[in-house]
Structures are given as structure tokens and as C-alpha cells.
């Protein structure tokens, strides 16, 4: 699974631990994100943009803490040495 | 010490265990060099050849795994074939990682008493 998909998956799972299954339905409302297989999310548009929107979906209702959760999950997904162009909101 | 005496490098940071293992091994007639951290182990390795390396996985200054990584980078991984990791870890991932470096094996310290410890070392030196 490519890194963006890995990051997306980790974010959704982290949100799921806090929100329950609602986290998945919130994620599936993100344009450009295909959540048919929750274990293998895929993108139909620029992954970076999709990530930005995904984070927004959560933070809109759940505030800054949810952004922190997304950030932690994103960094968790990146193993040592791997770097990727993260959207600013996740840096 | 004659040419037939086997040389062992023991790297273990827990002093009571290090003394115990060293004494057991010396009693068996081995030539033992004991260090308490990874950096000292490395310094020994680049200056001498040992028949067997008993390396603790968790050590200060340079962990057993990091030591193996450094040896691999510097192309000195010939040492790995004579390395047996000592661990109390039940964490399979660290052991699995160490095995990837081509080490001879590993020993879970809590499984051994002095007699079985010596038996295992003897078996590795054959």
C-alpha cells in the first residue's frame, strides 16, 4: 500500500478508536477518497488534497484535538527514514 | 592461552548477569572478554577476532541491533555468523530483525540455569 493510503488508513483507524464507526462514514464523505475496502483506501484525485479534506471533515465538528490525532496517526504511519510530502495541516 | 582456547566476547549491561556468565564461561576454560555496552563491544570487535559473540539486545550506548547494523554497513558482518543474541525480550520483532542479520541464534536468558547456559554455549562453539 502506498504511503498516502497508509496514512489515510491510520488516520481513520485512530479516529475510529475515539469516535467509533462514525469515523469511517465521515471519511467516506471525503471527495476523491474511495473507502469500499476500509483496509485499502484508494484515491481518485490528488492524495494530498484528499488528506487535507479528510482532516477538515473531522476537525469541523471535533475541533483542534482531532487535528492532533490526525497528525500523530500520520507520523505513526511513516516509519523511520521514510518521508513524504505531507499537507501543511499534518506537519 | 593456547591456540585451541576459544575466545568469547560477552556484552551484557546487567552487572550481576555479566559477572555470572563471565565466571561460568571462564570456569569452562574459555578466554572471555566482558563489556557492558555496545560501543565497547564494537571497539573490541574491530580490534580482535572472537570465536563467539554473546550480545545482549538491549545495551546502553549502542544496542545489540544497532551494533549489528553498524557491522553490516562497514561490511564486517562476518562477525554476525558467530553471534548469539542474549535477550529477555518476548518481543519477537526484535529477534526477527536480529535474525535477518544472519546471526547464529538467540538465547532467552530467563530460560537458562548455569548448567543449561554452558551447554548451549558449548553447542554454539562446535
Amino acid at each position, binding site marked *: 500500500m502506498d504511503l498516502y493510503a497508509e496514512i489515510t488508513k491510520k488516520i481513520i483507524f485512530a479516529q475510529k*478508536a*475515539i*469516535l467509533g464507526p462514525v469515523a469511517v462514514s465521515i471519511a467516506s464523505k471525503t471527495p476523491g477518497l474511495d473507502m469500499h475496502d476500509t483496509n485499502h483506501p484508494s484515491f481518485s484525485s490528488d492524495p494530498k488534497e484528499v488528506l487535507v479534506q479528510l482532516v477538515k471533515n473531522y476537525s469541523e*465538528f*471535533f*475541533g483542534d*484535538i*482531532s487535528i*492532533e*490525532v490526525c497528525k500523530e496517526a500520520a507520523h505513526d504511519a511513516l516509519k523511520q527514514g521514510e518521508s513524504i510530502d505531507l499537507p501543511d495541516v499534518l506537519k | 592461552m593456547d591456540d585451541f582456547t576459544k575466545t568469547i566476547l560477552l556484552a551484557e549491561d*546487567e552487572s*550481576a*548477569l555479566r559477572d*555470572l556468565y563471565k565466571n561460568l564461561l571462564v570456569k569452562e576454560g574459555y578466554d572471555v572478554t566482558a563489556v557492558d555496552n555496545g560501543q565497547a563491544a564494537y571497539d573490541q570487535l574491530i580490534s580482535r577476532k572472537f570465536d563467539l559473540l554473546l550480545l545482549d539486545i538491549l545495551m546502553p550506548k549502542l544496542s545489540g541491533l544497532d551494533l549489528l547494523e553498524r557491522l553490516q554497513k562497514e561490511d564486517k558482518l562476518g562477525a554476525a555468523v558467530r553471534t548469539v543474541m542474549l535477550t*529477555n*525480550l*518476548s518481543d519477537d520483532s526484535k529477534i526477527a530483525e536480529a535474525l535477518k542479520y544472519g546471526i547464529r541464534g538467540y538465547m532467552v*536468558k*530467563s530460560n*537458562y*540455569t*548455569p*548448567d543449561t*547456559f554452558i551447554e548451549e554455549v558449548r553447542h554454539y562453539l562446535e
Partner: protein
Amino acid sequence: MSSSQTTPKHVVDMEDLRKVAQSVYARNAELVKLDKMKDEFVALASHELRTPLTIVKNYLWLALHEKDEPLGSNTTKYIDIAAETVDRLMFLVEDILTISRIENGRVTLAKEDVDMVPFVRGLVESYQVKAQEKQIRLSFESSVDSQLVTFDKNRFTQVVINILGNALKFTPVGGAVRVSVDIEDGAICMVRVSDTGPGVASDKQASLFTKFGKIDDSYANLPNVNGTGLGLYISKEIMHLHEGTLTAESVWGKGSTFIASLPITK
């Protein structure tokens, strides 16, 4: 001043909901973090405990086997007991670590196709000596000659050893333990261990598989009963990981049967 102010349809409006959502979210996020910290602490503590335990175990052994300064018979007895206890402590720490790893989802099963009949027969055979020490008749039977089942050998061995060990422990001298392998509906493999021990009272059966669920009454009068109370809990979790079950049937005074069930292939 208009007297026809419309009352809002809902007492709680969107803004209130958002505030509640954020505060509950924050609370949950904190709890998830604490839960993770608790798990990390348990893993670290258990790991840290093993080193001093290893040291004690080794030095006690040295004390018992010191040829130059042999111990008197009383001292030997005391140190023997201490050494045995350290072993128990080590098993306890091992169990705690296993539970913490199971609960963290950090246990992956290494499944293989294994013929269950010789597998269980072999385990039973390895306990014959122990059974004979208590003059217990330990028998094995199987309704089939062979049956391939997909499971993790190491982990399932832990389960069988746990229930077989318990059966032998709680069956009095001269009793009997029966181990059997059966296939149900061609889809489920059941390993049964029946004993002629004291059994478990029906109101105590629920706590059998809980953490630390030792049952005081049934066990109190038995000599040398020790154990962490974690064994059955761990065994049950291992069966769950295999998508199987571990159940017990027992009548107080008449013995118990523990049943480990596994789907044949997965």
C-alpha cells in the same frame, strides 16, 4: 417586544451539540492515550521484572549446586522452595506479558496444517509420567484416525497443556483423566479433557475464564494448588484468535470437562 417569539424546536441546538461532541471527543482521546500508556507500562514492567528474576534464579541454582560449600539439608530445602517460587513468578510475568500482548493485538498466529490426532496424542504421552506420579489413569482416544486442522502449534499447545495440566492438578490420587479428539459436522475439531476432580460449582463457572478467576472453594482443600489464575483466560483468548472456543462443563463433586473447539480450516 414581540409576544409571539417562536420557541426553538429543539432545546439543544447545533452549537451545543458541537460543544458536547468536542468535549466527549477530547475525553475519549485522552482515554485512548491512557489505555495505550497502561499497556506500554504493563509490557515494560513485565519485561523489567524478568531480568532480576533471571538473576535470582541463576544464583539460587549456584547455591544449590556449589560443590565446594555444600548446603545442609534444611538450607537446601529452603532454597529449593525459593527456586521453585521464582519459577512460578517467571510464569506469572510471562502470563501477564502474554495477556498484554493479546490485548494489544500484538499476537499473530503462525498457522499450519497439522494432523490433530498425533499432535494431541503426543502431548498426552508427554504427561504420562506426571499422571503416574499420582496414579492417575491418563487416556487418549479419537473418533478419527487422522484429521488435518489449521492452527498455530505453539499457541494451541499452550491451551492443551493448560487444560491437561489443570486436570492432572485437580484430580486426586487414583483418579482418571480422559483426553479425546472428535470431529463435529465435519467442520469443527473438538479436543476434550475430562477429569474426575472436584468439579466446579455452577455459580462459580462464569468466573473460570476471567483474569485471576481462581475459584477458592473448590480449590481450597487441595494440596499444592498454585497457579496464577491467568491460564484459562489466556487459553480462551488464544481460542478466540483461532475463531474457536474454550468451554467447560462441570458438576460440583463429579469432575469437569474442558472443550477446546477449532474450525478445521481457516
